[in-house]
């Protein structure tokens, strides 16, 4: 089972948070349940999901912000050790890029200070001049020029895209093996997002970095990544090579996500066809009291008896493509390709005798 070619691996990790309600009652939020990811050097995996799907929690588990409740995280096949020294050693190899470039740089420090401190900690052998050279080199590697000028600026003097580049430069100063990107482009202006993705792409190609790209935007995941994993309500529902996963989703939720994403190239007939039937698709469940069985079953038009009681096992579909869905166990997988999610929902609703017209009037 153990595969040495993975640089970072999370095996069946779960994270449960305890929160206190207004009445002081402790409740358990099951943010991540039984999730596994594995990163190869030079490989890029996208983790796609909506807010509350657990993708950010999983990234933070991998960044050691919290310990997992269950399961284990392996760095080059070795389980994590506890303690501050081990954490420091871990963070010399695994770095996280935050979502908000405005929040992840201290507004009171110049760019040079931030990078210089990082270099002092990780390359203690360097003298002052050496660090100056490295700062320029790092800024040039993330395409910030003129580097010497940028180094003297405060974060508020830089645009969002420039700041995010500084954040990436800081992470690179550590010379990590793994970069975790927690929605690194979602707060940037549309026109500069792709440039950031191109930069990440270049880093993995040039330096063999392993990259975990966390996003809610499946189109950008396709642009950057080789493989895509989809999370729903704390569980992983499907993972596979990008074209297979988007072209022929094998889990109803993946299908819903792909069909809901804007795609002007779809070339479908009219607006009515694109949006028709899409007004009653339901919402993700609460993670305090998630549904039994498959967590997607209350919204799923294909749901059957097993889905309500038992968590679906993993079905391997070849080429590293797998999914957790009972349809595959019961030989009903073919139904997915024949219809759209929204019309399947409309069809079940019609069959159930619930008059949609009634709720519409």
């Amino acid at each position, binding site marked *: 089972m153990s595969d040495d070619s993975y640089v970072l691996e999370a095996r069946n990790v779960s994270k449960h948070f305890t929160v206190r309600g207004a009445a002081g009652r402790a409740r358990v939020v099951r943010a991540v349940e039984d999730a596994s990811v594995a990163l190869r050097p030079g490989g890029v995996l996208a983790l796609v999901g909506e807010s509350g799907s657990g993708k950010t929690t999983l990234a933070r588990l991998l960044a050691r912000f919290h310990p997992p409740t269950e399961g284990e995280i392996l760095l080059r096949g070795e389980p994590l050790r506890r303690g501050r020294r081990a954490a420091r050693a871990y963070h010399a190899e695994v770095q996280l890029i935050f979502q908000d470039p405005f929040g992840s740089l201290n507004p009171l420090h110049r760019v040079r200070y931030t990078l210089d*401190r990082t270099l002092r900690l990780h390359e203690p052998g360097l003298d002052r001049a050496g660090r100056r050279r490295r700062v320029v080199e790092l800024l040039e590697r993330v395409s910030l020029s003129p580097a010497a000028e940028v180094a003297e600026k405060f974060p508020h003097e830089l645009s969002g895209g420039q700041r995010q580049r500084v954040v990436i430069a800081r992470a690179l100063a550590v010379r990590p093996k793994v970069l975790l990107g927690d929605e690194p482009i979602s707060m940037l202006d549309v026109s500069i997002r792709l440039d950031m993705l191109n930069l990440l792409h270049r880093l993995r190609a040039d330096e063999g970095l392993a990259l975990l790209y966390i996003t809610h935007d499946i189109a950008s995941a396709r642009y950057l990544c080789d493989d895509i994993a989809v999370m729903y309500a704390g569980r992983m529902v499907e993972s596979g090579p990008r074209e297979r996963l988007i072209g022929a989703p094998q889990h109803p939720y993946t299908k819903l996500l792909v069909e809901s994403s804007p795609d002007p190239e779809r070339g479908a007939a009219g607006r009515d066809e694109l949006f028709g039937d899409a007004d009653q698709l339901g919402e993700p469940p609460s993670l305090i009291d998630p549904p039994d069985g498959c967590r997607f079953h209350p919204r799923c038009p294909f749901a059957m008896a097993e889905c309500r009681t038992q968590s679906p096992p993993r079905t391997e579909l070849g080429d590293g493509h797998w999914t957790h869905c009972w349809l595959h166990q019961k030989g009903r997988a073919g139904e997915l390709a024949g219809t759209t999610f929204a019309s399947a929902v409309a069809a079940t609703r019609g069959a159930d005798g619930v008059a949609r017209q009634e709720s519409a009037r």
Partner: protein
Amino acid sequence: MRLEFLRSWKVITGLALLAFFALLALFGPWFVRHVLGIDPLANDISAIAQPPSGAHLLGTNQFGQDVLGQVIEGTRASMSVGLLAATIGTALAVLVGVPAGYFGGRIDTALNFVTNLFLVMPVLPLILIVAGYLRGTGLWVIALVIGVFGWSGAARTLRAQALSVSSRDFVRAMRMVGERSHRLIFFEVLPHLTGLIASMFLHAMIGAVLAEAGLAFLGISDASVVSWGTMIQSAQDQSAVLRGLWWWFVPPGLCIALIGTAASLVNFGMDELANPKLRAARSTTVRRARRLQRTARLNGGEAS
């Protein structure tokens, strides 16, 4: 951006007032004796409880002492108590509040316990007891007592702020690249609290000046030193209010009020700059917007 606060008239006025009192505290006694030629402690038997006049600009008290001289002389004592107590109180608040907020967990629990203990302690009776016990040891002890008993509220606020700054991404990010805790506290977190700490210091200073006056009023003070508190206390002793000797207690009272006003002005001004919502309602913004609207209308009128 850093010196922007100097553009607010409130901040400027407040700082100017505070600077004035600071100068008075530094050079006041010298000025009174050598420029005005007044000995604030000397009793002029020929002028007992005289209203303001050419000879005594602010009149004299029951003992024939010059009130102007006493007010200026008292500035030093009151300000010293204020400064010292505020320094001690703010330092304690920073030392307890910031680590509590930054580290959280057990350290937070312990430090929070101490803070709460001081918060619920009946401070005034305690000060009375301690000050009574240490009777006769002078202004410094009074400042120490005020400072040591008056830091808990500020520590609470600082703890909350430090907690919020510590959970910001830039602190996490620097921790992730391996920055040490003490550097995270002093170079990443603390600089974001300087505004708050400065404003707390000003508050603590007013509080201490008032507390000194209050304690003096209750008879806990060093009677040999002139301060605003002792002035008001002796005016009270001699029933100055009933006898209409307003010039005896109004000047020191006014000074205390002015210091309070100055500190509040600085705080209000800083607040406006820090909070853009307040800025939109600022009269200059509204005025500027109106002027722009007017000129736009005029130009539009000419065009059509």
